[in-house]
């Protein structure tokens, strides 16, 4: 073969290789086009699934705070773990073991989590993020964040008001009633997996931040609530009772200031003051008198024959009185809680009028309070009344009412005859601080004229001064009230020897700021009368509230109601929440007067141009201080009336955050960067 032929053959071979390379390139291009253009979406999705993960960011439910801004319940982030023991680095195992031990994780699971022969462990339980810190971000440990509710205060009553959750599902209380308001909007973020197995937030897909639920400001005043619960607990224990209820409300606005319920074992699963009706007994008697006074069919000083405490009433039933007297005035009928007197007065009324009176007072109907499971009580329709019903109802039997209903009805006497709708919610604010809803007092109806309401308050003062409620009496202020001692119906009989002792008071009597109802179920320690068992609860609540600055008492208005000068105490007093304010002059005077050197508990009333008609404190928003100098931020907060403490944190801002409603005088923490 000549050289030319050999070159020609070589060229052919090169051409063949070139064609081969070209075909290969074309094949690659075709395959690339197939992968990228035809199946691009499928492969991209597969890659995204392998390399990224969409993480759900749970939104905190809205906080609930009391009327003074104190947190009652708030959301807290918890974390649960799945562990892949094989993936955990050798150097992390000791830390994993220590942290699981500190978290008190179940031992078998903790052991399995360290066993490298295992592939996957679902660790039971949810743990506070603050305690589980070392596990978060550890390779081989997969975290899931969840929100959990945390009671910010220890109070059985508040817990019952607030209610509870089962996982994410609201099951009781305000959590259930206002679930849609409290729920936040869940957020999300895209995580990408790095070559080393770490997960980082994707820079391409911005995080959708979770939005917190709305914040509820309750009408509950934790100071009064705390006092009421303690007073009720002591009474239940002292009287060996089955339980009891306390309702404290502001008759002028219908705001419920405290709601306490207690059972024998101390377990409170619901607010029996709202959900469980009872026969109110003698506490219903004043309404008969009020109705008759309104129509001029009696007077407070009218004398009624009370038959020395025993009466065979119309031949159908035998009526007896605990206080035996041949006759009593109408005022004394209520003060001594005479059954004979009230049934005699009731006979001046038609059944329809009696029924309408009870209906107008709100009995047998829902009050409208936003609490699930509220009972309307039972008021028998007029057509089903029998010959016993009128006299029974006059004495508070044959109908059932909830403690809340009864407190509201007395609220009408306190509020110049106007029945108010109750509320547990004062305000709803969205996460950004915008007010979504604010409670405006709502009048249900006028039940009595102001003159009749005032006359009734005068009449009911006598229950405290000379009647059945003397153990609730105060020295410095007049109180109006009524006791009730109801026989309990057991197995169809009222003779079981079981009673409900109750007492309702208006404080102070002439311009009531509080209506307080106390009820004790089945006291078994000797005393059964409402005036002896329940009335002291009232006194304890008023004294506790009066000695505390955290409670909802308008002291300036109260100053005009004083009927007796203060006396020097025989021992040192405390308020439980605040230190006494002792001025040198007062302390000197007290030391001079008191033999044992004790000092009085002195409260300061803020200066006012009008000593008798001070405006009530209203909550205001914490101002935004972002970008302000320390001096300007302090000025802005002080101008709003807040007390300020400056602390050093990595992030500037305030606690509570800007926009949160807080009362003047509340403490605001101003965070400054170091």
């Amino acid at each position, binding site marked *: 073969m000549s050289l030319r032929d050999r070159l020609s053959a070589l060229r052919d071979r090169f051409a063949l290789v070139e064609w081969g390379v070209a075909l290969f390139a074309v094949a690659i291009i075709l395959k690339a086009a197939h992968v990228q253009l035809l199946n691009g979406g499928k492969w991209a999705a597969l890659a995204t699934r392998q390399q990224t993960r969409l993480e759900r960011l749970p939104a905190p439910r809205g906080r609930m705070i009391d009327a003074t801004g104190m947190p009652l319940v708030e959301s807290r982030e918890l974390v649960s773990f799945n562990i892949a023991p094989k993936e955990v680095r050798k150097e992390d195992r000791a830390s994993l073991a220590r942290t699981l031990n500190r978290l008190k994780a179940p031992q078998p699971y903790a052991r399995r989590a360290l066993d490298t022969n295992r592939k996957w462990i679902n660790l039971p339980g949810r743990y506070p993020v603050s305690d589980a810190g070392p596990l978060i971000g550890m390779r081989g440990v997969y975290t899931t964040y969840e929100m959990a509710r945390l009671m910010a205060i220890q109070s059985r009553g508040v817990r019952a008001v607030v209610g509870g959750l089962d996982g994410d599902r609201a099951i009781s209380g305000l959590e259930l009633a206002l679930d849609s308001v409290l729920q936040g909007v869940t957020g999300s973020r895209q995580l990408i997996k790095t070559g080393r197995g770490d997960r980082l937030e994707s820079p391409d897909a911005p995080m959708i931040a979770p939005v917190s639920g709305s914040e509820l400001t309750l009408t509950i005043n934790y100071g009064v609530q705390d006092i009421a619960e303690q007073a009720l607990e002591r009474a239940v224990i002292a009287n060996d009772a089955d339980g009891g209820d306390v309702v404290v409300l502001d008759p002028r606005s219908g705001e419920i200031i405290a709601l306490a319920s207690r059972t024998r074992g101390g377990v409170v699963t619901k607010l029996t003051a709202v959900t469980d009706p009872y026969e109110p007994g003698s506490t219903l008697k004043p309404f008969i008198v009020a109705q008759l006074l309104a129509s001029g069919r009696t007077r407070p000083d009218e004398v009624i024959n009370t038959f020395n405490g025993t009466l065979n009433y119309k031949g159908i039933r035998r009526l007896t009185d605990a206080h035996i007297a041949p006759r009593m005035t109408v005022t004394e009928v209520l003060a001594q809680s005479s059954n004979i007197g009230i049934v005699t007065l009731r006979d001046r009324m038609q059944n329809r009028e009696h029924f309408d009176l009870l209906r107008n007072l709100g009995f047998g109907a829902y009050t409208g309070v936003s609490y699930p499971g509220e009972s309307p009580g039972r008021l028998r329709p007029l057509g089903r009344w029998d010959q016993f019903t009128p006299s029974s109802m006059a004495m508070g039997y044959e109908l059932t009412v909830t403690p809340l209903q009864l407190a509201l009805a007395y609220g009408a006497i306190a509020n110049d005859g106007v029945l108010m709708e109750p509320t547990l919610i004062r305000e709803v604010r969205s996460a950004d601080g915008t007010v979504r809803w604010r409670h405006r007092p709502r009048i249900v109806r006028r039940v009595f004229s102001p003159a009749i309401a005032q006359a009734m308050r005068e009449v009911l003062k006598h229950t405290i001064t000379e009647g059945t409620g003397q153990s609730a009496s105060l020295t410095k202020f007049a109180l109006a009230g009524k006791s009730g001692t109801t026989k309990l119906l057991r197995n169809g009989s009222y003779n079981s020897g079981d009673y409900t002792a109750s007492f309702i008071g208006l404080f102070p009597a002439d311009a009531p700021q509080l209506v307080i109802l106390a009820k004790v179920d089945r006291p078994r320690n000797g005393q059964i009368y409402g005036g002896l068992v329940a009335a002291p609860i009232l006194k304890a609540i008023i004294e506790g509230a009066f000695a505390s600055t955290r409670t909802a008492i308008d002291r300036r208005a109260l100053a005009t109601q004083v009927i007796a000068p203060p006396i020097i105490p025989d021992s040192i007093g*405390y308020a439980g929440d605040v230190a006494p304010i002792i001025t040198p002059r007062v302390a000197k005077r007290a030391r001079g007067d008191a033999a044992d050197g004790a000092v009085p508990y002195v409260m300061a009333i803020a200066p006012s141009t009008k000593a008798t008609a001070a405006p009530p404190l209203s909550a205001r928003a914490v101002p935004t201080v972002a970008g302000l100098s320390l001096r300007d931020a302090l000025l802005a907060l002080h101008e709003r009336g807040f007390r300020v403490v400056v602390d050093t944190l990595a992030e500037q801002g305030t606690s509570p955050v800007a926009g949160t409603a807080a009362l003047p005088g509340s403490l605001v923490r101003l965070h400054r960067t170091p």
Partner: protein
Amino acid sequence: MALALVGFLIVTVSVIARRSAGRALQRDLTTIQRTRTQLSGEQIKLEAEIRSASSRTRLAPLVEQSLGMRVPADTQVIDLQVTEAPRVTP
């Protein structure tokens, strides 16, 4: 050709360096966010404990038993009407 190769290398190295720095920053940010969440949780827990410890329910039995104190009667509480102090202008 050599210049193109150098250019390619520079671009590649700068892209990798930028991505590495970004990831390091992201890692730091994640750590800080975790710390913040942990501290917030700790703060809520501690505040709840403080409130519980300073509640009347907790304190009342202690001051009554240990110090012999009691809630003052209504007559033992003296309300002082505080007159407004004159403003001091700096």
